Every structure is written in structure tokens, then in C-alpha cells.
């Protein structure tokens, strides 16, 4: 349905994103994981064709959706896709709705724009979708303003907006980060159900490995604007080959007793202006050797998964 090949993004002279590839089909969920600043959100903005909004541009690679390359799509045609066939769910529901307008019209917009409905039809559709998202009393909610609702409820509204025109692909950019833990689980379950019921392709951007483990079919691990490992979720969790992936998995808290130790990764994510030479992860990597500081590693492909590490094969041998 959607495939991204070797995507690169630049802002002026800095290039915060390069060599990102993944693909996702209907009924499938792909997780894009990484710490903040690793380029996850930029990937989402690129697919939505919204980079110009934040002053960025695509420098290379292709984004293919349903057979057509989006990187060369004119804005007018792109607008039909946005909200129509590709829906976006943003990070912070508290600020993602227009505070001056009621909920109803904000959701109605989508059906009117993409399904050619009139005001009444669009409202009926809005209420129907709000109902399917288990929002009580949809008609009442439509008449409310965003500030009168909780974060979890607002995120449902955002999801309703993304779903209103029956899209093929849903991009969820950290949909639960700003929410309470209990609400987080509800939203994730909701998204998971939607994928199954509506045969959606879901791109789930998150920094939470446990969410990935629960919901995703495939995973892309990103670090410093690059994909460092990708593959089916079982492979990634059972036999992670990139040291960064291994570290991320080690960070997942296990067990409930106090003795369970939380591990972190030493050091911090490099910022765009000081991406290290060679392998971007080498300053924080426990396994780094001289070559890591000079040569960027190629992807070492193994079945349907790949890892960008000079020692990926060694890791295979060890875990085998």
C-alpha cells in the first residue's frame, strides 16, 4: 500500500533524515521506533507531504502510495490524498484541535471535503464515526469545544477526523505520548481494532518498545535520522542484531517487583548538527571498534530483516 524507499530530508544545508525505507500493507501495522530527535516525526511529515510547512524538503528517495510516487505529486492532487486516503493522528491531542471551533464542524470538514457530502450528511457521518469509536452521545460532543474535553476524548476526535473519509493508510505519530497511562492502553487497543476491522495500513510512530511488541507486525528502528534495523516484529525482538535495538529492548521494564532494574542507554541522541561520522551510534555503542568511527555500515540483510551494523553477522553467530 505504502512504501518508502531511501527517503532523505533536508532543511537548508542540514540533512536530518537519510536512507529511511519501509513498507506497509493493508491490515498491517508497522512500528517506527526511536528516541526523540531520531527523525520519526519527520518521516510522518514527509509521507503527508507537509514538509514545506515546516521549511523542509525531500532530497532523495521515493514515497510510493498505491502505485504512484508522492514525492513528485502536485500540491492540488496531494490535498485529495491528505485526509482522504491517508489520515494523520498527531502527537498532542491537547493542541491539535482548533480551540475556537466546535468539535462537529472540525470533523465534518473531512467528509465534506473528500466524500462530497453536504452539511447534514457530513454531520450524520461524524456522529456515526464517533459512535464506532465508543464516544458516548456523539450529537452532544459535536456541540462542544475542545477545551471542554479530556485528552483521551480529544485524541478519539482526532482519530475520528483521520477515519472520516475511510482512508487506506493511517499514520499515528506518537498517538499516546501526551495521555495518561490508562488512556494510552485504550487508544492503542482502539487503533489495533481499527486495523483489523477496516483493513487499514497503520504506521505507528512511537518510542515505546512494549507498544510495538503488542501491536506491530513489522518494525523500523531509527537512530539519528537513519533506519538502523528493520524486520518482522518477532525477529526484531527475538534476535535483535543492531546494538541500539538490543539496548532499546533491554530498556523495557519487566516485572512488577522492586528489584526489576530499569536500564538506560548511556549518552544522548546526537542533534542534527553534530551527527557523528561513520556509524551514528558508535559513540554510545558498547561494541564499537575503530571502523565504526570512520565507515558508515551497510545494511546486512538476513531473510526479511536487515541491520546497519558492521557486526551484524557476528551478532547472528552469537545468538544462533
Amino acid at each position, binding site marked *: 500500500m505504502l512504501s518508502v524507499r531511501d527517503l532523505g530530508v533536508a532543511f537548508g544545508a542540514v540533512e536530518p533524515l537519510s536512507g529511511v525505507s519501509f513498507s506497509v500493507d493493508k491490515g498491517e501495522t508497522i512500528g517506527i521506533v526511536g528516541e526523540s530527535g531520531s527523525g520519526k516525526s519527520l518521516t510522518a511529515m514527509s509521507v503527508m507531504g507537509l514538509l514545506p510547512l515546516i521549511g523542509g524538503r525531500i532530497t532523495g528517495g521515493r514515497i510510493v502510495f498505491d502505485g504512484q510516487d508522492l514525492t513528485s505529486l502536485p500540491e492540488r492532487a496531494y490535498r485529495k490524498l491528505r485526509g482522504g486516503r491517508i489520515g494523520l493522528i498527531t502527537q498532542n491531542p491537547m493542541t491539535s484541535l482548533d480551540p475556537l471551533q466546535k468539535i462537529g464542524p472540525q470533523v465534518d470538514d*473531512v467528509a465534506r471535503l473528500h466524500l462530497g457530502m453536504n452539511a447534514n450528511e457530513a454531520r450524520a457521518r461524524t456522529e456515526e464515526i464517533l459512535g464506532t469509536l465508543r464516544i458516548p452521545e456523539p450529537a452532544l460532543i459535536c456541540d462542544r469545544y475542545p477545551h471542554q474535553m479530556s485528552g483521551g476524548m480529544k485524541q478519539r476526535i482526532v482519530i475520528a477526523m483521520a477515519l472520516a473519509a475511510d482512508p487506506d493508510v493511517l499514520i499515528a505519530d506518537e498517538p499516546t505520548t501526551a495521555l495518561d497511562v490508562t488512556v494510552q492502553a485504550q487508544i492503542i487497543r482502539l487503533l489495533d481494532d481499527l486495523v483489523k476491522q477496516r483493513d487499514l495500513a497503520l504506521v505507528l510512530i512511537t518510542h515505546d518498545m512494549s507498544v510495538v511488541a503488542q501491536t506491530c507486525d513489522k518494525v523500523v528502528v531509527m537512530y539519528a535520522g537513519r533506519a538502523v534495523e528493520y524486520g518482522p516484529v518477532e525477529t526484531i525482538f527475538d534476535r535483535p542484531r543492531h546494538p541500539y535495538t538490543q539496548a532499546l529492548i533491554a530498556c523495557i521494564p519487566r516485572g512488577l517487583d522492586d528489584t526489576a532494574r530499569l536500564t538506560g542507554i548511556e549518552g544522548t541522541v546526537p542533534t542534527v548538527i553534530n551527527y557523528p561520522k561513520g556509524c551514528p551510534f558508535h559513540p554510545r555503542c558498547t561494541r564499537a571498534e575503530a571502523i565504526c568511527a570512520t565507515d558508515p555500515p551497510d545494511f546486512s540483510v538476513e531473510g526479511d530483516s536487515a541491520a546497519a551494523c558492521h557486526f551484524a553477522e557476528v551478532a547472528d553467530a552469537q545468538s544462533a
Partner: protein
Amino acid sequence: MILRYTFLRLLMLIPVSFSISVVIFMIVYLLPGDPIDNLLRVGSSPEDRAELVAQYGLDRNLVVQYFVWIGNMFQGEFGQAIVLRRPVADLVAQNLPYSLTLGGLAFLFSSTVGMTLGTISAVVRHPVLDRFMRGFILLGSTVPGFWLALLLILFFSVNLGWFPVSGAGGWTSLVLPVLTIGFGGVALVARVTRVALLDAQREDFVTLLHAKGLSSGTILFRHLMPHALLPVVTILALRIGWILGGAVTVEFVFGRPGLGSLLIRALGQRDYPVVQACLLMLALAVMLGTLIGDVAQASMDPRIREKKS
């Protein structure tokens, strides 16, 4: 809901207008010399004096005097002008329409032109236009109004002879005064509109509006403009006071009748009943302006409506 809000805001005006009226009332008493003399012509007979004392209860204590005074004010009984020898109420009635016309036009001019310029400069974002706007805003907010008025008179009236130098006959006499007051207003409104639009563009929800597939034009007019209008309305409401302040200067320079020129003249002649009446009217206008602004803002922003009601 909006009615309730308006009512509450009106209630809040009561203490404010009370304190202002006390200050204005006290002017006569803070002046050096006998307050009664300050309200009388030089060389008035003892009978005149006795009449004034009786009318305003000037022999009683200050609190009583205040309430007599404010009661008279409410009934439009502003007293007798000392120098102009006429009821102050007549003077106010005569001058008020001129101030309202000038103020209204200047307000209209600064808001429409200012918002248009501000929107253009926020949307186009061309470096040359930016520089021009910044220069214009700097000039508009720094050049003294009366000097600008004099320059305009020198150029358009004296040299080109397009408009009358002074007076208030016909619409041509309004052009330069409106331009003078409007200049600063336009610059201010343009700046606020521009900043507010640029701020609104950076809000998170704009990303989602684009993600819905809305066009940039729709987003600008249906979503960004209402947001940009909020601070603009606040500024315009505050500006009603400043426009009146500008009108004070401009009326004086152009020799137009109006509350401002009346006030300046009365100050120069120490005609205190007139001074008090003018100040009271201007203060009232400022408060009404802020009130209108607040109510307008509340009608646009649901968050404000609820917070205060």
C-alpha cells in the same frame, strides 16, 4: 452566555468608574486656593457664590459633595463654564459629535488598513516588504502625532492646497486628521496582526488542518484569521482610548471642534467645570472601549466566555 459575560464585565466597571470619577472630582480640591473660587469667575458677586454653594452643597462635607456632583453629572447637569459663560452640557453636546466622527473614522481606518497590511505581510513574507513594514511600524509608533499633523498640513494644505488647513467644514477637513491618528493605529494593528498570524501558523492544530486536506486559503481565512483577530481586537479596544488621546492632539492642531480641543482650551483657561466634564466623558469612552473589546473577544473565544462566567 455572552449576555451574562457582558453583565459581569459591566459590574466590574462600577468600582473602576467610581475611582475615576473621584479623581476627576478631586481636581478642584487639589488645586491651590479655595475650591469654590476655582469654580467661579473672577469678580463674581457674593450672591453668585452663595448660589453655587447652595446648588452643589459646597458647605457640606466632601463625601456629600461628591454624591451631589456625581448625581448632577448623571443627569447631564455639568455646571456652568467659567470663561465661555455657557452651560457645560451645551459645550459637550456641541463638541461630542465632532469627536465621535473623527474617532470613529480613525478607528475604522486603522483597523481595516492595519489588518490588511498585517495579513499581506504575514502571508507574502517577502524580505523587502518585511523591511518596509518594519520601517513603517517604527515610524508609526514613534513620530509624535502633532508633528505629523503639522507636516501633513504643510505638505497637503499649504503646498498642494488639497485640503483645508483647519476647521471642520465638509469631509475634506476630515482627511488629514484621520490620516494623522490612523498612521500610528495602522502601524500598531498591522504589527499585531502580523505577529498573531505568524504565531497562529505555528500552532499544532494547523498541521492537522493541512492533514485533513484543507487548502491554505481555507486554513488562513477560516482558522488562522479568527485566532489572529483575538489579539487584534484586544489592541483595538485599548486603542479606542489611544485614538481618543490622539484625537485630543489632532483636534487641537487642526483647530477642529471636539472634546479634545475643548479640554486643552479649558486647561489653558483654567475653566475647571469644563475640564472635569471633558475628562469624565473621555474616561467613559475609554472604559466603554475596553468593555466592547472584552465582549467582542469573549464572543469569539469560548475559553474566555467560560472562565469568567
